């Protein structure tokens, strides 16, 4: 066991004495995660607000006075133009409107992401809709019919999920996703350095000469990879939490696809058991991926080749997580908890929502441990293969 610890220690000392590497792997994510996660939504929030408040000029043709008045009331400035569509296409105006044959045509440059033109087009649309409703209400009133007849009843959808599940709804996907990303990116730093890096630098042969079983070498290197992977994961999650706290503090939030804003600051409530379960899941995931990365790294001829293996591995590892988005569309079966990586993501999702069962946890941890063991055995086999060790 001392041999394992010795190798583990050496790998981590080597990595931690590389300041640039520590900075890029452990420090930067803490500060970059908030920027990546919440920066765009905060900026977007401000931009949308600014665009809403701004008085945009609108190229108009053939609009009746009541429509022009409605546009002015909506903080827009109608400007007569013979061809509003051309004016918008040429970038002279953010939005244009033509009225002909009872149809209002609103022109805007709507492709290529969210633009001021889209906001202005929305404002025009909204102003004309209000005008339409006012005219309908007036017409109904002149006939003595109440306006409410148009809306005999209301439909309201209420999210009845528990608070923990609401927060977990997005985080249940994001947390495993980022955890896998950070586990892989942090772990690969050690895995590549400890394998292909050793080969390239000419230190591996001396290590293999040590009177220590190959399993101990493989385990020492894998555990160092796991340690760095977990530290990187913690760093990423700290960044995520920091971003959530900042977003809550400054009034921003995370925009969901449905347009709802999810406040993350202080919303995740985990009991001690769930927290430990999350950590164990992350550890087993890191152990599994660490052993895979050590095997791949050792097989590579050089540092560069090893890194080229890691990029597809990362994509491969993220693929099952993408399916996690669709978890609401299928009934979970026992075998889902045996699918590598996907099972860990499912369990994390369930732990965040408070819906994990002992059977699910047992299946996930047990199978991940088996996969990690197999990957470790494979790493030992690669260590024992002289054509792999001396491949450079």
């Amino acid at each position, binding site marked *: 066991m001392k041999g394992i610890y010795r190798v583990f220690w*050496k790998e981590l000392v080597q990595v931690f004495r590389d300041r640039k590497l520590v900075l890029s792997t452990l420090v930067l994510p803490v500060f970059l995660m908030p920027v990546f996660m919440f920066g765009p939504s905060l900026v977007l929030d401000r931009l949308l607000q600014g665009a809403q408040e701004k008085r945009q000029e609108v190229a108009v043709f053939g609009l009746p006075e009541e429509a022009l008045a409605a546009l002015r009331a909506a903080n827009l400035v109608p400007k007569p133009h013979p061809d509003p569509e051309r004016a918008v296409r040429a970038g002279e105006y953010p939005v244009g409107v033509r009225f002909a044959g009872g149809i209002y045509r609103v022109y805007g440059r709507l492709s290529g992401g969210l633009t001021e033109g889209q906001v202005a087009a929305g404002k025009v649309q909204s102003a004309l809709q209000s005008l339409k409703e006012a005219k309908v209400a007036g017409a109904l009133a002149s006939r003595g019919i109440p306006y409410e007849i148009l809306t005999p009843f209301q439909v309201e959808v209420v999210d009845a999920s528990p608070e923990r599940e609401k927060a977990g709804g997005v985080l249940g996907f994001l947390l495993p996703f980022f955890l896998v990303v950070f586990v892989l990116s942090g772990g690969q730093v050690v895995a590549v350095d400890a394998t292909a890096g050793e080969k390239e630098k000419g230190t591996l042969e001396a290590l293999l000469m040590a009177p220590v079983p190959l399993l101990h070498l493989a385990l020492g290197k894998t555990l160092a990879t796991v340690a760095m992977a977990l530290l990187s994961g913690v760093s990423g999650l700290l960044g995520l939490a920091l971003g959530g706290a900042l977003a809550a503090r400054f009034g921003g939030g995370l925009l969901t696809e449905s347009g709802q804003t999810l406040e993350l600051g202080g919303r995740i409530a985990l009991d001690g058991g769930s927290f430990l379960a999350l950590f164990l899941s992350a550890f087993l995931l890191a152990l599994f991926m660490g052993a895979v990365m050590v095997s791949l790294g050792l097989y590579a001829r050089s540092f560069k080749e090893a890194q080229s293996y890691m990029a597809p591995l990362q994509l491969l590892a993220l693929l099952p997580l993408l399916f996690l988005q669709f978890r609401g569309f299928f009934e979970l079966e026992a075998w889902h908890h045996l699918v590598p990586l996907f099972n860990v993501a499912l369990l994390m999702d369930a732990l965040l929502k408070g819906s994990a069962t002992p059977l699910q946890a047992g299946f996930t941890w047990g199978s991940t441990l088996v996969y990690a063991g197999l990957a470790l055995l494979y790493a030992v086999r690669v260590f024992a293969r002289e054509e792999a060790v001396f491949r450079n």
Partner: protein
Amino acid sequence: MTEPQVVISFKYMIEVARLSKAYGKRLAVAGLSFQVAPGEVYALLGPNGAGKTTTLRMLSTLVRPTGGSAKVAGFDVVREPLEVRRRLGLVNGGMRVYDRLTGREVLAFFAGFYGLEGKSFREALSWVTALLQMEETLDRKVMEMSTGMRQKVVIARAILHRPPVLLLDEATAGLDVFARRALLDFVKAYRDLGHALVYSTHVMSEAEEVADRVGFLHGGRLVYEGSKEEALALGGGSLERAFVQVVKEAA
């Protein structure tokens, strides 16, 4: 020089019998046999690709033979690799040590695998430091060392546990004249401690200086073996001429 006790239990510390290594259909080493006694430097000579490195890798358990057998200090390289590694040191020209560790940390790291910790490590460190005159390397990071200093750490790593058998494979490659001189002096000193050494090189002049016996390796086969004096006589005072003559005759 302070001298550790060397217990000699075998007539030969290295016994190689019909050792072979094939990579597919290509024979890198073919039926090699030789022995090395304690207190002897056996120079394995040959051009690049002759099979020297493969032979030493088989002896150091890094490469598995496909035929024959080899014993180091009485232990079989295939069946008892860990026992062999405990009694063996290997230095090759391309070997490096961890550049972000200090010399002392590197040696402590490897010493631990041989059970050298605490007092026994300090004693071993003191011995090897004196032997190689490498005090200045101990508290310096490897990345900050000169090539010669780094090579001393590589050698110190290989002999810290005082192995009765030391293998050197093109160990002077890339060294400057001072570092090379220090290494050759070390080889003789280590031999004088009663240890068995295999000195593999393609530089015949180095073998002329350190070898007691020589073996000429060509195309994976041992084409000549004898004492250095015999080989020198064969080549009219030059190992290089002797080698060329033997290879021509073998062809």
